[in-house]
């Protein structure tokens, strides 16, 4: 079984990383750096690929803010549900695919599949596939936006299909959700789909995370910050 390095030291030290087929939910408060935890986990390592579904930021901005290495850049694809609203003429490329709106779950599913197929066929980057099936990290940033457009029951069913598919593909799923914007029932439905939940909280100027669902790790609050784009535990 393929193991994905998570970029989170406690996880990688205790377990070597995350098993393929894992789906991780990151629950974040408003105005926190929680979505960056998602980016940390979803950055592709050697031989891997990553697909980011961006519902809030146009792909052009993400590419800029991520600070990817040349390798990561050629191994990262973005599904962008934002740009088409302003520029309907934006055309799909191998690494960026557009969906007209975050309400369009059909379109999201189709573009995701096309990207995965291109990766599997070896058409995504110029490098030969080193590992088969190719390890893919899929990051949805964010479920909060999808939930603004679609009812939670519908999104639950949709994600149920996606998480199952990711398991079969031996991929890794990462999802970020603002825990302050939704009721208990919504949060618990989303949690049901996941194996691991990373909870984030914020005290004055310090952010903490707690990892739930991995038996080797106790869900204590750990202070963290970002240094040079890396997630560092205190």
């Amino acid at each position, binding site marked *: 079984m393929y193991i994905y390095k998570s970029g989170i030291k406690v996880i990688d030290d205790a377990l070597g990383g995350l098993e393929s087929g894992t789906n991780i939910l990151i629950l974040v408060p408003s105005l926190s750096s929680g979505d960056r935890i998602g980016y940390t986990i979803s950055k592709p390592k050697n031989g891997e690929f990553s697909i980011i579904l961006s519902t809030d930021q146009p792909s052009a901005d993400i590419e800029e803010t991520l600070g990817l290495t040349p390798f990561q850049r050629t191994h990262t694809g973005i599904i962008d549900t934002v740009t*088409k609203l302003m520029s309907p003429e934006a055309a*799909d490329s191998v690494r960026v695919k557009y969906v*007209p709106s975050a309400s369009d779950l059909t379109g999201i*599913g189709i573009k995701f599949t096309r990207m995965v*197929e291109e990766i599997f066929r070896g058409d995504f980057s110029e490098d030969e596939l080193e590992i088969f099936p190719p390890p893919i990290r899929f990051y949805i940033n964010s479920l909060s936006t999808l939930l603004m457009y679609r009812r939670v029951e519908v999104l639950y*069913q949709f994600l149920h299909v996606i998480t199952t598919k990711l398991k079969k593909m031996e991929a890794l799923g990462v999802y970020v959700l603002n825990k302050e914007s939704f009721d208990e029932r919504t949060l618990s439905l989303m949690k049901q789909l996941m194996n691991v939940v990373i909870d984030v909280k914020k005290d004055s100027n310090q952010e903490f995370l707690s990892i739930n669902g991995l038996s080797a790790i106790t869900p204590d609050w750990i202070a963290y910050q970002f240094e040079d784009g890396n997630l560092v535990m205190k």
Partner: protein
Amino acid sequence: MLRTGISGIDEMLGGGIPGESKVLVSMEPGVDGGLFMATTLVDALSRDRTCLVVIPTSTRDAFREEILSTKGVDIHTRPDRIITLDSRTREDIRKNIRDHSQRLAEWKRVICSACTENNVDVAFIYFDLFYEDFGLDGALSVLEMTGVDKKPVVVVEHLNLEGDTFIEDLASAGLFDLVFSIKASYTGVPFFNFLTVEHISWTQLPRRSVPYLISDGTIRLYIPKIIVTGPPASGKTTFVNNASEYGISTDRNDFRGSSTTVAMDLGWVHLKGFDISIYGTPGKPRFDPILPQLFKCAMGAVLIIDVTRPETLDRARQLLTMIQQALLPVVLVANKSDLPYTLGKEEIRRILNLPEDTIITFISATRSSDVSCVVEDLVEQIIMFPY
């Protein structure tokens, strides 16, 4: 008749979709099936039909660009032929009307007047958000087109989040004249797509699944495997080579200098809208252990006999049994009919104990036209065969 524009499917439907029909194209999430509606839309526009597109998840321009990039066709070249109700219509209705049932009534009014004013021939409706906003009954009531005098063909794309039984229920409820479901299965290669005709009201067609491939914005139905088998030297390799636009064989010369197949023959052909792979088996019984592997996943079989050598029919009967055990549709080919022979149709049928409805064709595998006719017959059988 409205054509779907997808060759293979139009043939299966008996030419296309009759007027006033309601068609449901139901997709599993993640399946690359958006091209089905897009292809039908583009085909309808190319035949000068007036089309209404109701797509609450997109904008008119984004939809236009999507079709332009996938199909390479600008659907707005004749603006009078295409009317779009998009996410802005939905926003307006949500903003101006608070009451749920009045929103639904307003949608119906807007769609109805778009159809009437423009004399719409085909309405393409993206069902997903209607279902979410108004529930199943509400959303289905939009499709009734109440108040429209000249009822258009209604083609509905639906994202199926509820699984197979939901589609079976919809298919059996008689609300639609044609129900397709589009699914993907994950095998070694991801997302092997296939289309299933779940229900059709105007012709007899068994429930049928056909895999498809997408290349350059075109849906190509795909028959992954047709098996060509028969006794040694009956002409299998000759058949596969003459059926194929492109092929390979693994023949080796034996010690007498004549050649025989040691693994298989492989050919590809495009016929009746289908991309077809043809596999020829080796004929010698010593290769029997590999036959089950070659039969696996086949959708049909051609059994070839040599009409000049009745003594080989015992072997043919063994192979026929294997085909029947694999539950495959089969056509029987009496080959080498260019040479003198005495075997007749009825004699072959009797010796092989061949069912009445199995076609027997006398051909010469050296003639490509003969071979193509046989493959066409088999494709016909595959389309009509209840698996």
